[in-house]
C-alpha cells in the first residue's frame, strides 16, 4: 500500500512516497507510525489518544479534512470512501490523489509548521475570542443548576466538539477571509448562548461581518466533523434570532 505524504522542513516542501504493509483494521495514524518507526523517523505529525477524542490528528486525507486515527486505510484504497465535501480552492494547491494510493497533506487554512503539523494558534485565538466560559450572574444555587434532559441533549450537540480544527480546514470561507472566526468558534459561542445557566448576551459577540454573517452555508463543517457537531445549524439559528431582535 502506497502513501504519498506532504513534507516541509521549514524551508522547502515536497512529497515523499512510502510503501506500508497493510494490516487488518489499520488506520491512517497506524500507517504514519509505521513510517515513523520503520522508514523515516523525521516524519512529524501530532497524535495522542488514537481513539478520536483528543482532536490532535486532523489532517487532509485524500482531499478531505479528517482525523487520521479514525480513518481506516482500507476504505480509502478500496474506493469505499464516501466522504463528499464541497470543493474549495485550497484542495487544488497540493498534488492530486495518486491512483490506488493515499494522499496525506496538512490541514488547509493554517500555516504549516512541519510536515503534517500546522500552527493552530489562530484557530485557538478565535476560540478564546468568543469567551468560552460559563458566565452566571446573581445567586448561584447551593447544589447543581437544574436542567431538563432535553436541554442537556441540545447542548450536547455542541459540547461534543473536540476542537480538532477539521472544520476550519474544510470551510471555504476560512480560506478566503482570514478574519472569519470559523465554524468551531461560532458553534462554541452558540453552545454558551443556549446554556440555560448562562445569562450573558452572547450573540452580539459575533454579530459582525467576520462572525455569524460571514458563513455561506457550504456545510463542509458538519460533513467533516468527527463528532457530528452542526455549526451550520448554530449559525443559522443565531442569525435568525439576531434578525428577529432587529425587527
Amino acid at each position: 500500500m502506497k502513501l504519498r505524504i506532504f513534507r516541509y522542513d521549514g524551508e522547502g516542501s515536497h512529497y515523499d512516497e512510502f510503501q506500508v504493509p497493510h494490516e487488518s483494521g489499520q488506520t491512517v495514524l497506524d500507517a504514519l507510525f509505521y513510517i515513523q518507526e520503520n522508514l523515516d523517523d523525521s516524519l512529524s505529525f501530532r497524535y495522542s489518544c488514537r481513539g478520536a477524542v483528543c482532536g490532535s490528528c486532523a489532517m487532509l486525507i485524500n482531499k478531505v479534512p479528517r482525523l487520521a486515527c479514525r480513518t481506516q486505510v482500507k476504505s480509502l484504497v478500496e474506493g469505499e470512501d464516501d466522504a463528499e465535501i464541497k470543493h474549495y480552492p485550497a484542495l487544488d494547491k497540493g498534488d492530486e490523489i495518486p491512483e490506488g494510493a493515499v494522499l496525506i497533506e496538512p490541514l488547509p487554512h493554517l500555516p504549516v509548521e512541519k510536515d503534517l503539523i500546522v500552527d493552530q494558534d489562530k484557530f485557538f485565538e478565535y476560540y478564546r475570542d468568543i469567551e468560552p466560559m460559563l458566565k452566571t450572574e446573581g445567586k448561584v444555587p447551593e447544589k447543581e443548576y437544574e436542567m431538563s434532559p432535553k436541554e442537556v441533549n441540545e447542548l450536547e450537540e455542541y459540547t461534543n466538539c473536540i476542537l480538532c480544527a477539521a472544520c476550519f480546514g474544510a470551510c471555504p470561507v476560512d480560506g478566503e477571509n482570514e478574519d472569519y472566526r470559523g465554524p468551531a468558534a461560532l458553534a462554541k459561542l452558540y453552545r454558551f448562548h443556549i446554556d440555560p445557566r448562562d445569562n450573558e448576551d452572547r450573540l452580539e459577540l459575533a454579530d459582525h461581518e467576520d462572525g455569524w454573517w460571514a458563513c455561506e452555508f457550504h456545510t463542509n463543517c458538519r460533513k467533516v466533523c468527527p463528532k457530528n457537531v452542526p455549526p451550520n445549524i448554530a449559525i443559522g439559528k443565531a442569525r435568525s434570532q439576531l434578525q428577529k431582535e432587529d425587527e
Partner: protein
Amino acid sequence: MENEILHEHEILVIGGGLSGLRASIEALRSGRDVAVLSKVHPLRSHSVAAQGGINAALGNTPDRGDDDWKDHAFDTVKGSDYLADQDAVDILCKKAPEAVIELEHMGTVFSRFDNGKIAQRPFGGAGFPRTCYAADRTGHNLLHTLYEQSISGKIKFYDEYFVTSLVKEDEKCVGCAALDVREGTLHAFSGNVILATGGFGRIYNRSTNALINTGDGAFLAYDIGAALEDMEFIQFHPTTLYGSNILITEGARGEGAYLKNSEGERFMNDYAPDAMELAPRDIVARAIITEVNEGRGIEDEYVHLDLTHLGEEKIKERLPGIRQIAMDFADVDPVKEPIPVQPGQHYSMGGILVDNDCETDVPGLYAAGECSCVSVHGANRLGGNSLLETVVFGKIAGKKASEEVKDKEIDESIFMDAVEKDRKLIDPIVEKKDGILYSEILKELRESMFHHFGVFRDGEMMKEGLEKIRSLKEKFEDVYVGSDDKKFNQALIRTLELRNMLLISEIVAIGAIEREESRGSHYRTDFTERIDEKYLKHTVVRKGEEGPELEYSPVNLDRFEVKEREY
C-alpha cells in the same frame, strides 16, 4: 541582559490534564504567577478520554434515598483490597460532592435525571448509583470545562514543551528544564513544581491509554530523589476493544450490558454471583482471561460485551460514544451485535509518593492525579474515582504549593547548569549516526511487560521479565535518532520517553517480584492469597547508590476493619 531561556514563575504545573488544570486554577486563585508546561496542547491530554463518570455521594437517584460519603469511602477502601490509606480516602469522598457541584457551576453539562438533577449510574464495586456522568464523554466534558476556566489570560501556557529534568538547589526542587518541541531549544523555568503528568500505561502493548502516557512525571520525581509508591499495582480494564484496546466504559455494564463467553453464558455468575458484571475491575479482568485461557473465548482472544437487549434508544442516549467507537474501530454496531472485548492496561494505581497535601518528600515538589500515589486507590481503583481524584487533589496541590512559595533570589547559574546537563544528554543521541532505534526497544519492552507483568503473574516469569527489562536498558545505551531536525523532532521525544519508561518498568517489576501475595490487581499464581501480616504495606522505592532501593511503609487503617473481599 535578561536571560531569554530562563522563565520565572511562582508555580510550575507540569501536565495540562484535569489535575494540572485544577491545580493551576487553584494556584491562580491563591494569587500566584502560574505556568503550565505540557508536552501536548492541554486539550489533547489523556483526561479527555475518560468515559464513564465521576463518583460523589449526591444521592440524586429517584426513590433510592440518601447516599453517604462514608459509604463511598467504604466501597473505595474495600475495592482497594484495603491497601488505600483510609485518611486520604476520607478526603476524597468527603470532598466529592462539592467538587462535582463546582464543576457543574463552572459549566460542565452533566447528564440529568428527569427531575433536573445530575444523573448518577451504578458502577463496579459501588453499593449505590453514585457515578455522575456526561453521557459517556465525562472526561471530555470536564477537561474542556477546566480549560475554559483556565484561559483567562493570567495562566501562562507553554504548550508542546517536554520537561527533561527537575532542578534542585540545596535539596529543594526549584524548577525544571524543558525542550520546546516546536523549536528544538532548551529552556529553564523557576518555581514550585506540581507534577500532573498522568500515568505510565504505555509501558504495556495492550493499553487503553493515550500514546503520550509514558510516566514522565514519575521518572522526573524519582530522578531527583522523591519516592515512588505501590508501582506494581497496575489496573487492567476488563473491557477494551479487541484490536485497538480502546476503552469501552464500565458505564456500559452500569447500564446493564452482559459479558458472555463463546457459549453465550454470562460467565460472571461463576466468579462474582452477587455483583455479576459490576464486580470490581480486577475480578472481572481475571474472569475474562480465565474464560479465554480455558477455551471459552472467541477466536481464543476475547469475549462479548452484549448491549443489544438495552435497546437502540438507551444506547444512543447513554452510550453514544461507545457506539461510535465500536463502529469506527471494530465495524460493529452495538445496537445489533455484541462488542468484542478483552482486558487491557488501564490505570497506574501507584505513583509518586505524596502526603495528603500532595507534597512529595522533596520540598518544593508536589504531585497530583494519576502520576501520584496518595494513596486513595490502593491495590485496585474503583471506576469513577480517578476523575474525582484529579479535581480533589489537583485543588489541594495548587493550594499547598502556593502557600509555600518563598521570595528568594533566583540563582541563574543553577538553571543554566541544568540546561547544559540536558543538552549533553540530548545532543549525543541526535548526533549519533547508527545504533538502535527507540522503536525497536519500545516494542520489546511493551510486549514483555504484558507477558511478564500482566493480569496473572508468577515469580519465575517475573524474574525473567526483569532480566529482559535490564537487557533493554543496556541496549538503550546504544540508542540513536535518525532525524537531526530541530523542529518537532518526535523521534527524539519518543526516545526520551523510552528512557523514562525503561526505569518505570524496572520499578514495577521489582515491586511485583518482592510482593509475594495476591492483592487487588496484583495477582500471583504462585501466591494466590492475600497475606496481611506480611504485605498490608505500601511498597516504597527510592533512587539509591546502585539503583532502585525498596522498603515498605504502613497503611493508614483508621476507619474500616480489614476483611475478606467478597462480591
